[in-house]
């Protein structure tokens, strides 16, 4: 059910990525693209897969991201895709063999919650582009218009096996704006990183951040009830706006509605084209957000941070809402005081969709190990989860959360060859990404200085003289 919704959303978003044909209206003249929400070509992906040749990873322990562990497995990669995976596969002629004996292979790591590029390194005010704190509703801003592709954090993340990530605007607003999903390839423009066909997300935020930011300015919202009033007012406006466009299209009479970028994003959610990515910590607040979603007929794709998700794990599982969280972060504010290490494990146990996310330029390099912490804590609590299952927390489940699970996130024939070859079990603290592939092309090789850091920023800077 949930999967079907995402695929439908994908199909729509896939169309939107190319200049769409004019809408079917009775109007004599089509509107210029920028004035018609349904025709906006946006800022299309110009991602091009790197050149690649057929590759065979031979002898590895393969955690496929589908709950399966294959010992002494082979992964065949051809034309950027997984061709086959299994134990004892024959390697056809013409494949570059990679001896992966004693090592592990997983799908590429996917971070569902990153601010790389929008809170870029170095963290000076000039690079602080992640939170448009000028109004509680900034649904009109798009994270991709802030992303600096030279953020050195993209490089360190790639070296740690991260092949894709969702870049979100910050959490100071009720509606923070649109997210963008990127492939973690070196690129000079954000368009060169955009994951083709990935749907947009809308960042929403519950709780303390919006009420603190705007309460301090002496304006609404200054309470949680103020937050909720703000969400509801916005959805009422968005529904009204969507209705006006629908009416104008159906009737083809009179002036078209004036395009409103803020309401466009919200209307996109109501139509199921844009996925709601909701920063929300507390269990009670998540339940309220679910009621608001029901009230206005939209769906919440994921709660982010969601440190109290374990308290309502069955509800979240039933609603098909993913939970993106950490294992170790807690305590720094009231709404994160009840965070526990077992959160992801308890979501998994309830049959839900657990995701380990970073929200941080350092943690994005250790999502596999953060998952190990959550797994270990779960086992301590008597919850039996295999490593083959837990690998989903940083591969297949974030892919599902970002609406790209039909293309990446697991090692299955036909999927993109976004892969990591680990030096050791990825749930070990000693595991390093030896090699990383995106769409079958090597983007990082620990032994090859060709894949050294890409960022222009660090060129000619002190301390960069040694390869890492």
């Amino acid at each position: 059910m949930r999967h079907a919704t995402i695929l439908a959303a994908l199909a729509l978003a896939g169309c939107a990525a190319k200049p769409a044909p004019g809408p079917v209206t009775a109007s004599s003249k089509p509107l210029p693209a920028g004035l018609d929400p349904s025709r906006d070509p946006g800022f299309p992906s110009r991602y091009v897969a790197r050149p690649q040749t057929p590759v065979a990873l031979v002898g590895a322990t393969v955690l496929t991201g589908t709950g399966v562990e294959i010992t002494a497995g082979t992964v065949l990669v051809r034309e950027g895709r997984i061709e086959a995976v299994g134990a004892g596969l024959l390697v056809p002629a013409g494949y570059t063999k990679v001896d992966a004996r004693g090592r592990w292979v997983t799908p590429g790591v996917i971070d569902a919650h990153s601010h790389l590029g929008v809170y870029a390194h170095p963290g000076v005010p000039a690079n602080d582009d992640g939170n448009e704190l000028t109004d509680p509703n900034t649904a009109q801003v798009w994270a991709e218009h802030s992303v600096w592709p030279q953020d050195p954090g993209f490089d360190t993340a790639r070296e740690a096996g991260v092949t894709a990530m969702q870049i979100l605007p910050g959490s100071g607003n009720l509606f923070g704006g649109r997210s963008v999903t990127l492939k973690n390839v070196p690129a000079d423009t954000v368009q060169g990183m955009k994951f083709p066909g990935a749907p947009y997300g809308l960042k929403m935020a519950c709780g303390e951040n919006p009420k603190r930011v705007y309460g301090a300015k002496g304006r609404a919202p200054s309470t949680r009830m103020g937050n909720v009033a703000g969400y509801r007012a916005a959805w009422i406006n968005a529904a009204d706006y969507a209705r006006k466009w629908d009416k104008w299209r159906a009737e083809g009479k009179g002036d078209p509605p004036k395009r409103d970028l803020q309401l466009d994003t919200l209307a996109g959610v109501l139509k199921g084209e844009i996925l709601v990515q909701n920063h929300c910590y507390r269990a009670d607040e998540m339940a309220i957000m679910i009621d608001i979603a029901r009230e206005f007929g939209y769906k919440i794709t994921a709660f982010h941070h969601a440190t109290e998700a374990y308290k309502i794990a069955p509800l979240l599982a039933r609603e098909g809402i993913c939970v993106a969280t950490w294992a170790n972060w807690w305590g720094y504010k009231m709404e994160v005081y009840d965070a526990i290490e077992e959160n992801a494990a308890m979501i998994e146990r309830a049959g839900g969709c657990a995701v380990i996310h970073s929200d941080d330029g350092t943690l994005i390099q250790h999502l596999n190990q953060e998952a190990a912490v959550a797994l270990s804590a779960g086992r301590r609590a008597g919850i039996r989860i295999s490593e083959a299952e837990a690998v989903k927390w940083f591969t297949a489940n974030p892919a599902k959360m970002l609406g790209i699970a039909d293309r990446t996130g697991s090692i299955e024939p036909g999927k993109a060859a976004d892969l990591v070859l680990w030096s050791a079990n990825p749930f070990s603290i000693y595991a390093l990404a030896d090699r990383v592939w995106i769409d079958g092309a090597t983007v990082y090789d620990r032994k090859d200085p060709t894949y050294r850091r890409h960022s222009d920023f660090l060129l000619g800077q002190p301390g960069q003289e040694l390869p890492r």
Partner: protein
Amino acid sequence: MNAQRIAALLAALLASAPVAAQTIAITNVRILSMGRAGEVERGTLVIRDGRIAALGAGVATPANARVIDGKGGVVTPGFVLADGRMGLMDVSQVPLSVDRAQHNPSLSAAFDVSQGLNPDSAVIPVARLGGITRAILAPEYDDQGGRTLQFAGQAAAVDLGQRADMVMRPRVAMILELGENGAERAGGARGAALVELRATLADVRDYARRRAAYERGQTRDYRLSRADLEALVPVVEGRMPVIVSVDRASDIVEILALAREEKVKIILDGAAEGWRVADRIAQAGVPVILDARLDLPGSFEQLGARNDNAARLFAAGVTIAIKDGEGGSYRARELRYDTGHAVAHGLPYAAALAAITINPARMFGIDDRIGSLDIGKDADVVLWSGDPLEPLSQPGAVFVKGIEQPLTTRQTELRDRYLAKQPWGGTGAP
């Protein structure tokens, strides 16, 4: 403190007394002693009266001992966090629950975190489940008062056994931040911060020589209050180290030179670019406390940050301690993973374990009591199910001064409450 609370405290102390007097033998374990016994592949460790009584392969289990079968696990000394905050805060964004910083403009070096600690803090058991049994609690700067504080204050060594008397040794170090933030506080330039520092040290020396004249009001004006001057006397006399936060290689070189000229004992904190001047740090005999995962240019003073900083400093002969990364000690339990990360990036295993046990103990002069499993030392002991640096290992027993600590936290209690509420209970069966 009301009578009820005092009674409860006394009851707790009395209850713990017989436990401390117990003899405990942990058998069938690999012992990483970090002390004279080195590594014992398979042996027994005996705790008596709160101290390490024996350890080794051929050690017999005393007749009266409580025996804990270690089942092939690993025993280590309790970890020592070189830069902790636990006990100084409940929720960091709730200012009234936080005592780690102060912005009283007339108080700087004299601020002493050993006064006002909360041994009941919920942050402490969480850290202890990460194997941490002692910490150096360091004050932080609070700049809301207008960035007038030259020093953040004085650090204290504490034990995390959650006793009323958690202070092990107060005033073990002075906290000073240089680099970008230090420059900002001094008026906007690094040079200003160094001039200020030299002038302050000169004031303190003058004051120390002329206390009687000071009483009579016959000294020149000093830039600091009397309390601050007093607090800095041990620093100018070389009895108290100054923990100096610096990252840029050039800042490290400057402070090494200043410390040599002023005969001040320093410990570098941060040192993101320390690897670039590792030989000079080693030559100066200055130890370094570092965040092993810092590999991003978070600022212009961290352009050279890299994953193998710890390994390179160690290779050059620098004594290192690894601290937890970001998180104000809520995430102190990640200390063992941070240390494992340093191993993955080239730091030898034994050196890594030393960086969270005996090295920080030595840096703060408390290695006579803790930091290694040596006979006669306090029995701060952790039994692990496997390699303590691996996330998939868990502590099976934690002792502070020979007293077994509960393996529960406010978080495990929350976990158990909600596991019980859900249909499958805590057994793992759906």
